[in-house]
């Protein structure tokens, strides 16, 4: 399983890398939505992308919208991981095609539980 971690903060990418690699994922990183699209196009296609919202160049919502518009990427699960917590923004992200939404700050268990809900890790993977 391959996870694409998309966040403009290297520190946050490191945090998420530690969590998902601990759950058995291989990890690739991108610093914004455009870099993430480039990574997807270069392949391999990830099983899941964990996507920040506020990023330079291309934000997470635009990335999600772009991925969902491409049939060949239908299998990519999209999880927003962001500080944006207004109800309207959560609705926008889900309407654009995000499958799950995690608000920062989060715990490793919260990420594991969401991945279990998505069927990407066994239930009970949280520590």
């Amino acid at each position: 399983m391959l996870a694409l971690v998309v966040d403009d903060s290297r520190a946050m990418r490191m945090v998420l890398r530690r969590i998902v690699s601990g759950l058995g994922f291989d990890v690739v990183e991108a610093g914004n939505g455009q870099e993430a699209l480039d990574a997807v196009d270069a392949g391999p296609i990830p099983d899941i992308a964990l996507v920040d919202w506020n990023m330079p160049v291309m934000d997470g919502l635009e990335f999600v919208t772009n991925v969902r518009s491409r049939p060949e990427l239908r299998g990519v699960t999209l999880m927003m991981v962001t500080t944006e917590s207004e109800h309207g923004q959560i609705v926008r992200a889900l309407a654009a095609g995000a499958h799950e939404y995690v608000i920062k700050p989060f715990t490793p268990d919260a990420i594991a539980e969401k991945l279990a809900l998505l069927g990407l890790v066994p239930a009970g993977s949280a520590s």
Partner: protein
Amino acid sequence: MTAAAPDIDDVEQIVTEVFGSFLGGDDESLPMRGPDTEGDSPVTATVSITGGWDGHVVFGCSTTASRSAAAVLLMMGADELAEADVADAVGELANMIGGNIKSLLPGPSALTLPMVSVGGGAMHMPSSTEAVRLDLLWQGEPVRVSVWASNSDTQEGSTS
């Protein structure tokens, strides 16, 4: 009636959650209320909020605290960190704290990317008034979170 501002206890809870989630969760590693301090923090990261409420959230700390936080987040030795690593880590802390403070304020609104100053001079917030100042100690080092309301926002609130 004054413009909306977050409660200082709510701000402290947000900071505690962010530090607890990312910088070590045991009680001894959480920031505690510290004495009010004068002067500017040598390391600051600012995010601005625009929309239903206009203003800024500033996370400031000592150089030692900034390097300690970056070392934990990046799993590096403090002596291995470049200035960009410290700026990135402090910026992300400001992003999380500011984003959660935004959720306490009237919306809808947008959050800017963090602006970080490492070793910079005095912090200027033109046309803004400090609405909340929270001084904390983390690992014995000063940490400050302040919330600045734009004066236009305050004036609109004061007339209603």
